[in-house]
């Protein structure tokens, strides 16, 4: 029987050293007992808790301290997952934790993928232990309550906490990172952690009497605790699941829980019973209803009016109406299909990837975008939500028809010489009928009832082309189409 004595409850290095030697010496888990310096009598008092209780009495072998035996040069590999788990599980208060870890380590040598088998009893047990340790650590981060001694700037903050497992050294760095500019101590029955602004010091445990019992801010905190609680929705089980009673002793606000619960029902009743008050008459002055004489639509008016358009259902899910933009009397009006995701968020047409593509093509063709009026045939983004993204949907004919009023009124307000319809939806709106792009594309269409029209593709069509070659070819064609616009403008301005 090998009897290993570790330096402390959290002596991971000692455990690792001993465990490594034991494995290399081929010592089976049943032939090892583990103790912590100072704890031995307790272990012997409770033989029922030892895995092989009988062997304790029989063997009189001396305790081995891991540092005493010469370290063999040999090492062996264990999965990183095991080391991570061991670091945490070893902090569990169960006296058998060292033995459980050794048992798993032993089995890992023959079966290295064991760590992936969550259903293995040894793995599951240690994982449950690690989970309990992590939870206790998390609760310590949450439930430590510092009390101030002295007053700023010379104050010191001291807390009393009773951890369930050996987590003080694990949890202390969190407080050092968080309260770096404070001098603090966390006192516990096991060990205490202290921070002086530079380093963490660990000292032996103390009794609760050593900790301060009050703080000048505690009453304010209790006021907050009582006020933020909604008596109309008592859910004490949910509270206790997250804040188990074992922590209440050291939480000042826990003293309020009972009275708050007792008064909650009464308060909620009183609230419901109280006479309701009548809603206030609206005090805001409605703007005077002197609608100006019907006048020619200016773009500003139109934009304003279109914000509230409900002519089809597309407004409902979209963020806002994306109205056209550009100088009131632009010579060229560019009409796209409908706003996309970016345009919907920004409230401006052609600011997304398709817009950037358009900008580039316009520049290459020699057309100044700032001198054009840019709009869309349909003014609201149509989409279906898919998780975190919105999938663009093609507007349907009724929507195109419903939205056409805005295009027509924009057209009347801007009075351009040339309208460029980009994509099928735009062509349908501009020409007033479903128009295959390929047939009409790339030449100026004269119209008696309005400006000339040029049909071309939508820049987002170029974005969607899969291969680079097709992309380059189609992009060049698009620029060629826009060059027609430039030429046309030059002619128009010369005339």
């Amino acid at each position, binding site marked *: 029987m090998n009897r290993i004595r570790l330096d402390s409850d959290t002596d991971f290095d000692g455990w690792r050293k001993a465990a490594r030697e034991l494995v290399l010496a081929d010592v089976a888990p049943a032939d090892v007992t583990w103790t912590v310096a100072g704890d031995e009598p307790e272990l012997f008092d409770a033989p029922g808790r030892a895995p092989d209780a009988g062997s304790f009495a029989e063997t009189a072998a001396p305790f081995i301290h891991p540092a005493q035996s010469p370290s063999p040069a040999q090492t062996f590999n264990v999965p990183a997952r095991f080391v991570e788990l061991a670091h945490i599980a070893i902090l569990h208060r169960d006296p058998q934790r060292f033995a459980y870890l050794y048992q798993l380590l032993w089995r890992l040598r023959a079966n290295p993928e064991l760590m992936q088998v969550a259903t293995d009893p040894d793995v599951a047990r240690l994982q449950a232990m690690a989970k309990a340790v992590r939870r206790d650590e998390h609760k310590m981060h949450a439930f430590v*309550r510092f009390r101030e001694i002295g007053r700023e700037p010379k104050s010191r903050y001291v807390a009393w906490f009773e951890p369930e497992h050996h987590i003080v050294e694990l949890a202390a760095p969190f407080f050092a990172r968080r309260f770096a500019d404070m001098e603090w101590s966390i006192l516990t029955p096991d060990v205490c952690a202290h921070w002086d602004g530079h380093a963490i010091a660990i000292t032996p445990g103390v009794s609760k009497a050593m900790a301060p019992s009050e703080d000048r801010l505690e009453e304010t905190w209790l006021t907050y605790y009582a006020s933020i609680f909604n008596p109309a929705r008592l859910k004490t089980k949910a509270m206790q699941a997250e804040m188990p009673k074992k922590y209440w002793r050291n939480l000042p606000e826990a003293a309020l829980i009972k009275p708050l619960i007792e008064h909650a029902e009464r308060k909620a009743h009183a609230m419901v019973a109280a006479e309701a008050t009548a809603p206030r008459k609206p005090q805001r002055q409605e703007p005077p209803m002197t609608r100006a004489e019907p006048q020619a639509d200016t773009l500003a008016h139109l934009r304003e009016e279109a914000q509230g358009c409900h002519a089809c259902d597309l407004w409902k899910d979209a963020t806002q109406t994306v109205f056209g933009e550009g100088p009131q009397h632009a010579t060229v009006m560019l009409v796209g299909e409908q706003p996309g995701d970016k345009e919907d968020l920004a*409230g401006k047409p052609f600011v997304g990837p398709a817009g950037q593509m358009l900008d580039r093509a316009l520049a290459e063709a020699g057309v100044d975008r700032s001198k054009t009026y840019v709009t869309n045939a349909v003014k609201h983004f149509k989409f279906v939500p898919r998780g975190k993204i919105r999938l663009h949907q093609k507007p349907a004919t009724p929507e195109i028809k419903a939205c056409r009023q805005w295009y027509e009124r924009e057209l009347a307000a801007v009075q351009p010489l040339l309208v460029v319809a980009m994509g099928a939806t735009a062509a349908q709106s501009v020409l007033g009928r479903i128009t295959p792009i390929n047939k009409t594309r790339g030449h100026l269409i004269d119209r008696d009832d309005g400006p000339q029209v040029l049909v071309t593709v939508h820049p987002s069509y170029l974005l969607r082309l899969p291969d680079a070659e097709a992309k380059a070819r189609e992009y060049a064609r698009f620029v060629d189409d826009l060059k027609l616009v430039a030429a046309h403008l030059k002619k128009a301005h010369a005339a």
Partner: protein
Amino acid sequence: MDVQRKLAILADAAKYDASCASSGTEKRDSQGGKGLGSTAPGMGICHSYAPDGRCISLLKVLLTNACAYDCLYCVNRTSSNVPRARFTVDEVVQLTLDFYRRNYIEGLFLSSGIIRSADYTMEQIVEVARRLREEHHFRGYIHLKTIPEADDALIAKAGRYADRLSINIEMPEETSLAQLAPEKNVRAIRRTMGRLRLKLDEATEAKAEARKTPTRAKPPRFAPAGQSTQMIVGADSATDQTILNTSANLYGSYNLKRVYYSAFSPIPDSSRALPLQAPPLVREHRLYQADWLMRFYGFEAGEIIDPAAGMLSLEMDPKLAWALRHRERFPLDVNRASREELLRIPGFGRKAVDRIIDTRRYSAIRAADLAKLHIPRNKALPFIVLPDHRPPTYLLDGARLAERFQPKAQQLGFGF
């Protein structure tokens, strides 16, 4: 009025806002520098729990509960007779620091009634955050309520100091907001959410750029914990389906971190225009479960609820209810099914699914393993096949299956 009295009023005024989380922000601490505080990225820390079961993570207060608006569901509306108070900027700053030093809180969640103008109110809120960050080098968590229609420069500033920004959508349907909160405008709220999303996206892109060229100056930060919103449930007649559709739309459109559902709660001095009823807490809970299914389990808003009902079942969780309506998809072989399928089995959580996928490569999952994976047997067994278990076909096909999961009303009752 002393600070404690003000705190009583202004915390009371803030308690109907369901959001509390201090999660999802960047990693920060005060070690090696001047200042105070750190953040816990990933999961935030709940420092206490109130008897209403809700976590206390942040100092959640209003700067003032005076408000020019008259939203009927709100305790702070202008026609309400509650006592009013107003914190000074310094008082909130000091209270935050004092509470933080004692480890009562993770940071501040500041909201306000609308006073004077949207811009004035937003300015005050931002000033608290600015002072905490710039004058006190506070590195804890800050959540600011954004006032819709506030100036773009103020919003940008808010995002520089805050971890999270939020604007409450308030009602699942535009029509009910128009009725209950005549001065609020869903369109303005959505426009502001859209603006926030653009700024959040920009910050993300800038960060990705900066990572590629590490020599460049650090990009300006903008609300690293993103934006969230709250919807009040039960003050209007919207169905759960409407609520989930609205949420799906908001998640997709504005990339929200969270939609919080807040069961409409009777408020002191409430308006005659509203029903006075106990808050539908179970309904709220089911909505959170359904929301979870959308965000982490691959469910679409349109498939969670029985189309005939339009409402989530109050008796059973939404995944179980879904499985009972889609028995043709079951039983699934746990040792074979894809991750997507496993996630749809009642009782199978995300962590359990991860462990199953890991484990089954080496060792088949058997019925006795369910407990180790923290999977409730009763709930799961009718829907799964294991090497040592196959549910009898009459069970999946029969009418009795649903009954198994109905709560035994007479025996259970509600504890008083």
